[in-house]
């Protein structure tokens, strides 16, 4: 058996700051959030489940390109439905402002229901509502046709969906315990699912996670997709640069001074 080799090289220093974005100090910060998200994922796996049956899969997504792809998918979906348009556009901004995205899916809600006749899916005293709308043979659901025009290929076993809620809840509880900001979103889940995350699931919820001075998921302004920190910074670059262009002096020879100033400027 290989013996544990103790690493006693315990020294170093790490500079951490959220500014500037994607700098080494910011990436170190993000790595801390990734650790938190990993623990959130573990919590999701230990949530209560009907019958104790494992049915959760998850993806952790991080990195500038990965988050941008997710945000763009959300924006694409936003324009397919006026009822969720604004929310999806706003939440795409939040994804770009996040450090890590945790996607949690349920692998059984569309294929292997609880089969307990609980009635939650359709309000009936048996599982008929689910099975009558599914392509199945003697209760074995055939999911090979994935061409549904719907965003989610329902109906789903609501008992399994309920289990997924438990998983999401436990992840969020751990986020709260670890003092990282997190919020559950349908938009992130649907977009992530469309991109191929949580591929075995019938339904997915997305939880962006961040550890920044300002919680990215609350206190948003109107037209958040048009007015947000990224846009404000870009706007500053646009306006301030031009404002400099229309100045006219060589600072080595002369600098304008306020009028009525008694003492000389330094």
């Amino acid at each position: 058996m290989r013996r544990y080799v103790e690493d006693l090289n315990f020294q170093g220093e790490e500079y951490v700051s959220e500014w500037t974005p994607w700098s080494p100090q910011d990436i170190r910060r993000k790595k801390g959030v990734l650790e938190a998200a990993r623990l959130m994922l573990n919590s999701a796996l230990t949530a209560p489940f009907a019958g104790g049956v494992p049915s959760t899969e998850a993806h952790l997504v991080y990195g500038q390109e990965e988050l941008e792809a997710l945000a763009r998918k959300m924006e694409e979906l936003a324009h397919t439905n006026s009822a969720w348009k604004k929310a999806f556009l706003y939440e795409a901004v939040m994804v770009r402002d996040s450090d890590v995205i945790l996607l949690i899916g349920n692998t059984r809600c569309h294929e292997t229901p609880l089969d307990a006749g609980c009635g939650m899916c359709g309000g009936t005293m048996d599982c008929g509502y689910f099975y009558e709308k599914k392509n199945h043979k003697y209760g074995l659901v055939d999911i090979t046709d994935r061409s549904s025009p719907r965003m989610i290929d329902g109906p789903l076993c609501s008992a399994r969906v309920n289990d997924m809620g438990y998983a999401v809840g436990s992840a969020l509880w751990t986020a709260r315990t670890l003092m990282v900001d997190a919020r559950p979103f349908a938009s992130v889940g649907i977009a992530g699912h469309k991109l191929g995350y949580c591929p075995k699931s019938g339904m997915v919820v997305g939880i962006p996670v961040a550890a920044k001075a300002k919680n990215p998921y609350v206190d948003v302004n109107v037209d958040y997709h048009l007015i947000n920190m990224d846009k404000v910074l870009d706007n500053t670059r646009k306006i301030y640069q031009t404002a400099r262009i229309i100045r006219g002096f060589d600072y080595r020879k002369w600098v304008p001074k306020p009028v009525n100033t008694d003492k000389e400027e330094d």
Partner: protein
Amino acid sequence: MGHLIGKEYCLDHLVEVAKSIVLAIHKAPQITGKTEIQAEILWGDDLEPIIEVLGPVAKVARYVQWDYETIKRCHEKGESPVIINLGAKVSTSNLGWNCGACGFDTCREFNRYSKNDSGGGGQLGGPCCNWKLLDYAIACDWACASAWHYNVDNRIMGSLGFALMALGYLPEADVRLGLALGPPRDMVYYSREEMHKTLDYEQDKMDMIRCVPTMFTGFPGGGNPMYKTKQDWWAPPEYMGVGYSDAAMEVMQEVLYEQVPEIVVKHADAVAARYTKSN
């Protein structure tokens, strides 16, 4: 100054802990932000109608039997659990997302079905907008997580949800679950010391044969395998049969449509009156 002795103060404090847990329930994050979560607390003799309703159901469902026996035995020996009733109204979608998760193309079609055509709620309620159900489940999970942090043994129970629905608790809700809390000791609802010696070895083994038959299946190449249900399982051989059971259905019908309603009738008015008073 003070001196608390015995177990009574612990049991009393469970109610206070339950109130704190209800705060966590209402603080739980939501996906839609549009789901109203309802929570109530029951304890002491107020558990008796619930225990009574679960009694006949316990005869036809083992998991209900376990919940029923545990709660009943704890209550009878003066260690009554505290139960948080959790409910929400999720059978109507006010989202307009038309996501299809419910099985309909649009929320409007789902709402029409829910209003006119559904069975009016199965064992646990329904039908459900699955996004709103997720909000509800997150709140239920926060109740469990909160109880966990208070180090109170707990279990979220569909059996209690059925009893709550039958008796008319949480009348505004269309899904219901119950969170059983305490009594203050370890492993009340897991491994279940209360249930020791309830099943003998043979009953336990027969449960496994019925529930996990592949573990007991002989060579399947003949198409009708023998089942290894005893030490000398080959002599004489035993085979599994599948078929409609008049006996099982009769018992189920009797329980759900005769025995449970009889009990409900005794208590329903008193339960309903509580909600009338509070209005």
